[in-house]
């Protein structure tokens, strides 16, 4: 089902923005891809290395096998602090584990401090894109929601709206006690955690929160600082079209004098090891920059929600979702692609998504029932003859409708 009109317009505009950027330096995707593959080839070694280093730095490390365990771990850590209002940054991991809902069910209010995420919460809308979650919210829609929630006169000037959001959100940041942070990278060599953004909310949380609860997917570990530097560049170029994000915060454990006094790290599996075992280590190299989303003509039509609320979206989601979260809804996602290779051309870590999608389609075809196979065989035979094909299609529709 196609996305609504504002979402499609926003995705079209996003595509135009991305197309206007200079192409990635040709040497970057192979080098960044190699850095990711090196870790994924020996993931358990690097993960244990990271956990050992992080514990040596004074962090508490927790392992979550699935989203329920991750939710439980986050909520338990928040309960330890006694806080009921907690700030969080913007991360697709929170959607993946449905953290907002789980926290609300336990009497904890999670306040998104990322402006885009906060606008989504105000309007009740769904995210557009991993990096630009709120770009599809029209000015009128947003202004009305802000006016209602914050009792301010509605304005249709984006600068004024952003300024109003700043006035509301910044005091929350300055007074933050506990924060839940979805981390971009974890460095195995020294146990440090890294967050990137352009508005600085992550750096504020890392500097000001007394208790930091960090969530990270197990595949996001990088080997060392040299790889980290490369991947920061790859992420920044692919996500925002700039050499480096305006703010890159790095913490290596708690500090009594400044920074968080307690750092919890939750390493999330939730199907990642299953994907690795299924031979999808190439796809797990994804760094979550959202470049393939913006380039994909199918995504531009269907939007993020077609991939399921708590799953990854876009071409990378179409590859990983059926393996990581095998449900009836995710099974057909490899078909959400036109095979145009636009996603492969923009991937900063050189993932050949069309090849992976074709592989999964072949697997799906091999597992198809005899009825499906017969249907496709007939379709293939009848397609060149419209006089036969159209009545056959009508008949098939009628039969399927009855079934």
């Amino acid at each position, binding site marked *: 089902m196609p996305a609504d009109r504002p979402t499609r317009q*926003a995705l079209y*505009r996003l595509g135009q*923005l991305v197309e206007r950027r200079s192409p990635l330096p040709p040497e970057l995707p192979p080098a960044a891809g190699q850095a990711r593959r090196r870790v994924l080839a020996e993931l358990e070694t690097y993960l244990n290395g990271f956990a050992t280093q992080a514990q040596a730095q004074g962090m508490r490390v927790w392992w979550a096998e699935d989203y329920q365990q991750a939710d439980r771990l986050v909520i338990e850590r928040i309960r330890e602090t006694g806080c009921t209002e907690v700030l969080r940054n913007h991360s697709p991991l929170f959607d993946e584990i449905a953290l907002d809902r789980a926290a609300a069910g336990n009497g904890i209010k999670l306040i998104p401090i*990322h*402006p*885009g995420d906060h*606008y989504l919460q105000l309007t009740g809308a769904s995210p557009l894109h991993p990096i*630009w*979650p*709120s*770009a599809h*919210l*029209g*000015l009128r829609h*947003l202004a009305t929601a802000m006016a209602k929630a914050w009792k301010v006169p509605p304005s249709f000037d*984006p*600068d004024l*709206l*952003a*300024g109003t*959001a*700043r006035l509301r*959100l*910044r*005091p929350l*940041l*300055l007074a933050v006690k506990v924060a839940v942070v979805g981390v971009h990278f974890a*460095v195995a*060599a*020294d*146990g*440090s955690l890294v967050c990137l953004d*352009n*508005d*600085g*909310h992550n*750096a*504020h949380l890392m*500097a*000001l929160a*007394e208790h930091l609860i960090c969530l990270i997917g197990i595949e996001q570990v990088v080997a060392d*600082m*040299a790889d980290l*530097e490369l991947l920061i*560049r790859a992420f920044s170029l692919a996500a925002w079209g*700039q*050499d*480096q*994000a*305006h*703010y*890159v*915060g*790095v*913490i*290596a454990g708690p*500090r009594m*004098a*400044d*920074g968080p006094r307690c750092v919890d790290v939750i390493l999330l599996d939730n199907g990642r090891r299953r994907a690795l075992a299924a031979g999808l280590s190439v796809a797990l190299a994804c760094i979550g920059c959202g470049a393939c989303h913006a380039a994909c003509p199918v995504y531009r039509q269907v939007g993020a929600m077609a991939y399921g609320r708590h799953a990854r979206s876009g071409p990378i989601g179409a590859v990983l979702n059926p393996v990581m979260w095998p449900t009836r809804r995710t099974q057909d996602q490899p078909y959400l692609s036109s095979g145009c290779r636009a996603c492969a051309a923009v991937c900063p870590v050189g993932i050949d998504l069309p090849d992976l999608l074709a592989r999964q389609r072949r697997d799906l075809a091999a597992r198809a029932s005899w009825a499906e196979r017969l249907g496709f065989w007939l379709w293939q035979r009848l397609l060149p003859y419209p006089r036969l094909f159209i009545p056959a299609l009508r008949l098939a529709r009628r039969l399927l409708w009855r079934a």
Partner: protein
Amino acid sequence: MKAEFSPFVQRFMALWQQRGGRIEVHESQAAARLSLLLTLRELRVREILAWPPAALLLPGLTEALADAGIALIQPERGRLRAELTVGLTEAAAGLAATGSLVLAGPVVDAWLPALLPVYALVFLPIPRLFSDLTAWQRAQKTEGLGRALLIGGPSISADIEWHAHTGMFGPRQLHVVLLPPPENGELSTQVPHEA
């Protein structure tokens, strides 16, 4: 006379300005101090968020600020004052490859003066310019970055229809003051840390 800068310095300056940052370079520390005082006078501030005076790089700056009636306020967690609009801090390194600053080091709350105020002034001695993060880290002879903040430009949010709003959480204006090495007081055109 216009000074000749090394390609390192030129690249850093070009990238910094490209992202909307302000940068100035002085031939002596006295000139840098005077320029800073003039900037603060233009901004009409009486208090600025800053590192401990002893850690500030420019000799005589604390006294000069006191003479001008400007107080240095150190950040205290839990009692942060949102009304402080100007911050003053120093960078541990500048990275020419990305045109960014590295804030790190032993000083407590080193990040905050560059993170909280609307206008952030950052001192960067020219000898602390490195080609990239790896080169800086190699010079530090440490395994990792430890606790560090890399700043590549002002705080920008483009979450409302991609309209860029500067100064969302952090500074609207980032002002880098490149300082000459203290030994001779003159501006160096050679950068000792090669890639």
